[in-house]
């Protein structure tokens, strides 16, 4: 069996500019959509706010180019829901409308000022396809976590985004982490780094080993705090996780007044060396691929995020969002297909599970939404790393069964509460 490991870094970061047309869904991260504050035909500045947050935990969205709003229409989100989307056309190179830089030292800044600035500048937890609950959003000051964990390693194989960010600006990451620590009121600051970058950060570090899923946020959170906090509902109260890119964005928002307008994305095709690119938000996938000399053809698979927990897209014209960590292409012949067969009980999933779950029994129950039984087989412990489906001899879509059962459980809980 091929071991799943994180590969070492290869390329320099590249800038992608010049996209004259951007598509920006008003749901970039999490599940609460933003409210559009522009209308069709409006002229927008570069860096102007186009989507306002309705709740304090969410950050706003800014236009990465100066131009005109061409459309405001519903599109399909990653979750399959309908979400308002802004289409902008114009000049991507113009001057950026910045906020006033804040010069004060982190220690002297009130947490509220920082939080307001982060919301204003659109600093959301970046990456994880915008749905990773471990990257908690901003939280009220009275819910201060004990620890702030900054992930400078990538959580999945193939991805290089976070390590690149650290490599290309360790001072900014550290500065951002310190500012964010102040904003959420954490007492302890820990950096998760890979063995070849321990000297880039100062302070407390935790080393991420080479073997997947050691970079998984839940695993690292447990290593830092000494316990898994899965049964208590998310996000965890005692620890807050952001990644290096978010820390970088914090630094830029506070010190330079720059809103979040781009995202670092690892782009590649299966079997080829990936590159890391800085891409303006809203750039469509096909343009990003074109820049690296790739193109999606019929029967290919295009996914954002990593190969184990990512999301496949049906539309090559879909946009890069704040959640996009990676963009990968599998050619038709490389695409692996799941099968609808019974579990044969080979036990590979049980062996590989980092959480020691009896995956064979759990997923048999998950498949048919037998929630009580699935919970008794530790569904609540699952961190959705995807290794069970990776090794499944019967090629069952185990991760899908797990996600399905969790959704059914949430639905049942909601109904129970409303009844």
């Amino acid at each position, binding site marked *: 069996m091929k071991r799943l490991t994180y590969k070492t870094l290869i390329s320099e970061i590249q800038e992608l500019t010049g996209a004259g047309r951007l598509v920006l869904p008003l749901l970039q991260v999490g599940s609460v959509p933003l409210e559009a504050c522009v209308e069709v035909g409006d002229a927008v500045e570069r860096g102007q706010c186009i989507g306002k947050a309705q709740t304090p935990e969410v950050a706003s969205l800014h236009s990465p180019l100066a131009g005109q709003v061409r459309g405001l229409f519903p599109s399909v989100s990653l979750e399959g829901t309908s979400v308002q989307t802004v289409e902008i056309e114009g000049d991507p190179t113009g001057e950026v409308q910045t906020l006033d830089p804040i010069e004060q030292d982190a220690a002297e800044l009130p947490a509220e000022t920082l939080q307001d600035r982060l919301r204003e500048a659109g600093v959301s937890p970046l990456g994880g396809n915008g749905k990773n609950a471990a990257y908690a959003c901003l939280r009220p000051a009275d819910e201060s976590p004990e620890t702030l964990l900054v992930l400078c390693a990538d959580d999945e194989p193939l991805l290089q985004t976070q390590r690149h960010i650290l490599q290309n600006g360790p001072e900014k990451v550290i500065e951002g982490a310190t500012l964010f620590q102040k904003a959420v009121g954490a007492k302890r600051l820990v950096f998760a780094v890979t063995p070849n970058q321990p000297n880039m950060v100062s302070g407390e570090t935790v080393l991420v080993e080479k073997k997947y899923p050691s970079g998984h946020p839940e695993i690292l959170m447990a290593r830092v705090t000494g316990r898994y906090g899965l049964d208590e509902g998310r996000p965890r109260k005692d620890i807050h996780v952001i990644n290096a890119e978010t820390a970088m964005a914090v630094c830029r928002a506070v010190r330079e007044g720059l809103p979040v307008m781009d995202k670092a994305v690892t782009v590649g095709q299966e079997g080829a060396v990936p590159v890391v690119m800085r891409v303006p938000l809203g750039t469509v996938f096909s343009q990003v691929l074109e820049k690296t000399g790739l193109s999606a053809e019929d029967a290919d698979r295009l996914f954002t995020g990593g190969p184990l927990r990512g999301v496949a897209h049906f539309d090559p014209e879909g946009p890069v969002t704040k959640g996009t960590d990676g963009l990968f292409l599998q050619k038709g012949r490389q695409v692996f297909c799941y099968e609808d067969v019974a579990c044969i009980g080979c036990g590979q999933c049980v062996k590989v599970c980092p959480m020691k779950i*009896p995956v064979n029994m759990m997923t048999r129950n998950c498949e048919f939404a037998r929630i009580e039984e699935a919970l008794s087989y530790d569904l609540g412990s699952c961190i959705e790393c995807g290794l069970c489906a990776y090794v499944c001899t019967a090629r069952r879509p185990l991760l899908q069964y797990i996600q399905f059962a969790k959704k059914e459980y949430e639905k049942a809980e909601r109904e129970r509460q409303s009844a």
Partner: protein
Amino acid sequence: MKENVLTVSVAPFWHCGAGIARNSYLTMAVLLPAAVVGVMHYRIGALAVLGLCIGSCMLAEALMQKIMGRPITLGDGSAALTGMLLALLLPAGVPWWLVVVGSFSAIIVGKQLYGGIGSHPLNATLVGWVMIRISWGVLMDVDAALANLPNLSGLSSLAALKGGYVDAVELKDVWMGNVIGPIGSASLLVLLGGLVLLVLRVVKWEVSVGFLVGVLLGSVLFGSRILPEGIDASVNPILMLFTGNVMLGAFFLATDPTSSPSQPIAMWIYGFAAGLLAMLIRVYGHYYDGGVVFGILLVSLASPLLDKIRPKARGRE
């Protein structure tokens, strides 16, 4: 502009490459040397049993799936593997109808009635073997069955031991199958094939190792009692390891994914208990030739229970 039609699926988008069909064919491939030696010994008789077993198992599978309105899954090779394993447990001279009855019992009673692959509580191969062994014991007797074939004399190694002819059984003959026995008697070749599966992680190695430890301990404890009373000799425990299907049992029968447990400690207990039980039955039981088979079958019944022995999942209070 033409819209591309992309493949969409759930994550993960990678797979390690394992598959039911791959495992079945790999298992059959590593058993091939032992089967070839069997055919070299018993010529057309062994070939006929092998062919008939595999053929009728596949036929039974296809028939049952057709009747039950399920998709026909002969391609995954599991029926063919069941047939091959059953053939290796049978002596070369058994009547053709007995082979067919055994194969049909294995697939229909042992597997398909429970819902097919992944659902059977017992190893299908063993169910088929036990069915015909109990029903037509005389015909299944290795020595009697082989008496029909020309140019053979002597007794099967286990029968020889039970009869007290310790000196008649030599390890080097037993290794290469140069003794009277079922088709898959070349136990050294079976062992090597099994080790290949172990290295490739196709089988549960805990079960295999546990089984061999159980057999070894069993044969040290009461191996010598297999000899009739009054004969003062000792049986080499290594000899007990290589006679009468122990190797097939350790690597190919006890490790049947569906009827064995999956939790680490449970797998050890399961393998060990099956091995120990196999020796007990061989030494004290009436079906001394079926010690391995009955041992595994009996312990399989307990495997759902054994699987309850599991570590506490992480994150669970």
